[in-house]
């Protein structure tokens, strides 16, 4: 719960997301679990479904409109983001990228703050696509909570490791809570989507039991 905690240790404390310094105290500004990482990093793990754009985050967006030189992209935030048509690999003024309204794009924020309209790009700082761009012929796009997405994208993600043992599939995870899955058959795609949505509130034990049951029951 948002409250104030007095830090009695004299060492330097690094406040992560969810914590704010107010004079000599550290205030909690989001409800969640306080996490600690050695040596001195503290942050709050909060559950949230509404996405707030942040700079540098990779998200899955849906193209909603083409106006002049930019595309309008829906990323699930309060405003639509803009994506310039030159921000694709190998795009020039003459060579326009093949992007239509309704396409899915995996892109990164370069401008994302509360005062300006967010801007996306599909290239990195060197000019290479690096996995970003239009994708999604076939497959299923669904929405999960932001906490689950962060758990999936963690370096040693147990959920990802357990899922890999099931059957081969392609997955794209956006930090705005959107996940795109494609497996060999529609049935397998739906199974993976349902499993991910149900992993939300399960402990590791329950999850592994569920996965084992599905693996035994399915083909």
């Amino acid at each position, binding site marked *: 719960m948002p409250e104030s905690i007095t830090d009695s240790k004299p060492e330097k404390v690094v406040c992560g997301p969810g914590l704010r310094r107010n004079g000599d105290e550290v205030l909690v500004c989001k409800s969640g679990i306080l996490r600690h990482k050695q040596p001195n990093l503290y942050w709050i793990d909060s559950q949230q479904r509404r996405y707030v754009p942040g700079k540098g985050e990779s998200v899955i967006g849906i193209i909603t409109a083409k106006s002049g030189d930019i595309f309008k992209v829906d990323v699930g935030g309060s405003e639509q983001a803009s994506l310039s048509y030159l921000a694709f690999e190998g795009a020039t003024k003459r060579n326009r990228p093949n992007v239509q309204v309704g396409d899915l794009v995996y892109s990164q924020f370069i401008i994302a703050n509360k005062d*300006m309209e967010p801007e996306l790009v599909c290239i990195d700082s060197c000019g290479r696509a690096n996995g970003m761009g239009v994708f999604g012929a076939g497959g299923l796009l669904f929405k999960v909570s932001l906490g689950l997405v962060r758990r999936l994208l963690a370096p040693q993600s147990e959920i990802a490791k357990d899922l890999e043992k099931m059957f081969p599939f392609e997955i794209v995870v956006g930090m705005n809570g959107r996940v795109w899955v494609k497996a060999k058959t529609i049935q397998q795609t739906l199974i993976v989507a349902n499993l991910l949505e149900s992993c939300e509130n399960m402990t590791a034990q329950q999850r592994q039991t569920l996965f084992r049951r599905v693996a035994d029951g399915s083909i």
Partner: protein
Amino acid sequence: MYLPVLHSGDRLCSTEDCMPGTGVYLRHGYIYSSLAGYVLRKNEGEELPVISVVRETEAQLLPDVGAIVTCKVTSINPRFAKVHILYVGSTPLKDRFRGTIRKEDVRATEKDRVETYKSFRPGDIVLAKVISLGDVQSNYLLTTAENELGVVVAHSEAGAQMVPISWCEMQCPRTHAKEFRKVARVQPEYLQA
């Protein structure tokens, strides 16, 4: 000396009687009024009296090219910042005029590497200079490309008024977080102790 309300286009007198002032224009040797308002005739002494038409009893001070104005940032954009002009010099304005500070007019050096988000934020009070009055539809064009121009008062994300540290950074006294702004170097005689 005031006369009753005039309409735009009313003929006032001929150029032999009076000299034209503000709010009037000359045509075919006669002085016509270009505003709807009151006639003001001032006697200069030996020269002809100056005739002018004013809208209200006090003449509105308009920002002129080269004037230092105090404005408040209303919205920012990667290419420019929109402001409301509040004061011209030290006189407050009755209406708020609109101004624009383009990205290339924020600083004198490294103009192409300016980020508007790191120079201004909505709600900042900025000292700027007028470079152009603009067209019919566009606003006043302003610049902050000098050491004495830029952000004077800014509030941090926590809500406290920030203290300037350098020409490009300000610090919040409550959270000690530093934020980027294009800070004005205010002359010591204007600062209150």
